């Protein structure tokens, strides 16, 4: 996910189908044209509302705000607090970090020494192997969480393994997956990563039934949609976990949910995750740091404190479209986790908005001009 050069390409028209009408959300201060009175030269030349919108976007926009890291207020700014802070740094880096690294290493040793035999020796006995692998994956995730001194409070009933249900959650960092996985072995759908993460994905996470996609491939969507459908129908597959935002957001806002998870004909169980910023900013800004650096940052912080709410399962209401369903669930999650909703598609991080939105503005202005021309 190291698209840090920001090579933008125009989005395919497929992405348009995912969004409800953005115009309902966009802050349009003044309408482009006061729709009354005969058309005069001043009306045509007065482009101030459109310019104001553009300047407003340059000065501050809701999309960029979603991906801003929350750096904590520096509190070490005076003579008394500074030594305390220095002591804290020494403690974190020289005592906590090595201790955590050791814990994590022990965890990996235990995990691998159990997982490798189970994986290869029990090839014939699938049901038992899957059960053991599930437990082992939950175990290594617990070790990971311990390595950041993760304090996770789970609220709500623990997810059960039933067919025809998917879980959706808001997305702040890849650690969301680890935090949820230590409670219940989900099969998650993720972007395929390079490096050591990719290696883990193709070996260990395969065993819990994870599905990979590649954001940059257009055809990929159909293949993935098919895989999702197949997985959710299977009775003994691990419950499917989907992050419908499609990208990491900074835990203050939520971007629009992709409808893919909501048109599988399954019950959707929302999960809300909220990190406590006082301890660490858990937002993984993939443009700024690699996942390894992100993990190291977590391991040298005091703790990762978060709340996880398992919310009431939702079903598609009669007459509701998949997009409306997605928005309704996003509402539920955003309210629970205290997130502000923005009307943008998370994938706009990687591609430009479709020309459809500009065309809508152009169309309404054009119609207004023609109409006013007729007036006497």
């Amino acid at each position: 996910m190291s698209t840090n050069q920001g090579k933008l390409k125009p989005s395919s028209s497929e992405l348009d189908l995912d969004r409800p009408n953005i115009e309902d959300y966009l802050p349009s201060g003044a309408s482009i044209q006061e729709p009354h009175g005969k058309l005069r030269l001043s009306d045509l030349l007065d482009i101030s509302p459109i310019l104001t919108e553009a300047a407003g976007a340059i000065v501050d926009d809701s999309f960029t705000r979603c991906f801003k890291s929350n750096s904590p207020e520096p509190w070490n700014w005076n003579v008394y607090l500074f030594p305390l802070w220095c002591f804290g740094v020494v403690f974190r880096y020289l005592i906590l970090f090595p201790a955590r690294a050791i814990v994590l290493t022990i965890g990996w040793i235990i995990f691998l020494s159990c997982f490798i035999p189970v994986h290869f020796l029990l090839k014939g006995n699938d049901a038992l192997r899957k059960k053991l692998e599930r437990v082992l994956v939950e175990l290594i995730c617990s070790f990971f969480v311990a390595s950041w001194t993760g304090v996770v409070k789970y609220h709500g009933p623990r997810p059960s393994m039933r067919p025809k249900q998917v879980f959706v959650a808001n997305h702040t960092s890849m650690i969301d997956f680890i935090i949820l996985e230590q409670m219940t072995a989900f099969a998650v759908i993720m972007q395929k990563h390079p490096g050591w993460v990719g290696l883990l994905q193709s070996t260990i996470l395969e065993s819990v039934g994870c599905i990979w996609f590649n954001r940059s491939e257009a055809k990929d969507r159909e293949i993935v949609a098919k895989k999702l459908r197949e997985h959710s129908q299977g009775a003994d597959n691990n419950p499917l976990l989907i992050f419908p935002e499609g990208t990491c957001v900074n835990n203050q806002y939520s971007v629009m949910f992709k409808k893919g998870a909501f048109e599988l004909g399954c019950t959707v169980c929302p999960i809300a995750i909220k990190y406590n910023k006082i301890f660490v900013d858990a937002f993984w800004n993939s443009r700024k740091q690699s996942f390894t650096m992100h993990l190291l940052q977590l391991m040298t912080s005091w703790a990762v404190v978060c709340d996880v709410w398992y919310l009431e399962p939702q079903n598609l209401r009669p007459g509701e479209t998949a997009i409306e369903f997605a928005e309704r669930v996003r509402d539920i999650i955003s309210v629970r986790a205290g997130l502000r909703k923005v009307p943008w598609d998370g994938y706009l991080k990687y591609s430009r908005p479709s020309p459809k939105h500009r065309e809508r503005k152009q169309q309404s202005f054009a119609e207004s001009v023609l109409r006013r021309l007729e007036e006497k």
Partner: protein
Amino acid sequence: MGNTSSMLTQYDIEEVQQHCNKAFSQQEIVSLYERFCQLDRNGGGFVSAEEFLSVPEFAVNPLSQRLLRMVDGLNFKEFVAFLSAFSPRATLLQRIEFIFKVYDSDGNGKVTFNDMLDVLHDLTGQFISENQRKQVLTQVLDEAGYTKESLLVLSDFVKILGSSGLKMEVEVPVD
């Protein structure tokens, strides 16, 4: 002024304030600098067209290409000067001047029929035919006492737009 440092000195702030004719307060200039650094992802000291277009709200604006021509590659001082027309403290003349500059793409101080036609094209896209646009523009120009061959200068713009209450203000968020 350091491109890569994210600290503005008091001297820098005052210099920028002078350059934009005190259109922004010192607090606002600090906020704008934060924003500038946020947009300037590769730290080159200026915001490129690509970086501006990565703001979806800007990219969907019909006049984004015209504005890009004016704002591409500006350093921070020029960036603030560019935005000064949108400050609440800007005068009506400054705002009209800005609008004039948007129309006058070749910067020769004269706005031709084609310049106005181009902007109208940006605003209406494919929803009005080229002929209709010419027709509309000729008609309103005629009623205002100009012809197709007229070359409008800034004082003409002042005359035309001076009486309509131009609402062109943007609030700079200050923490």
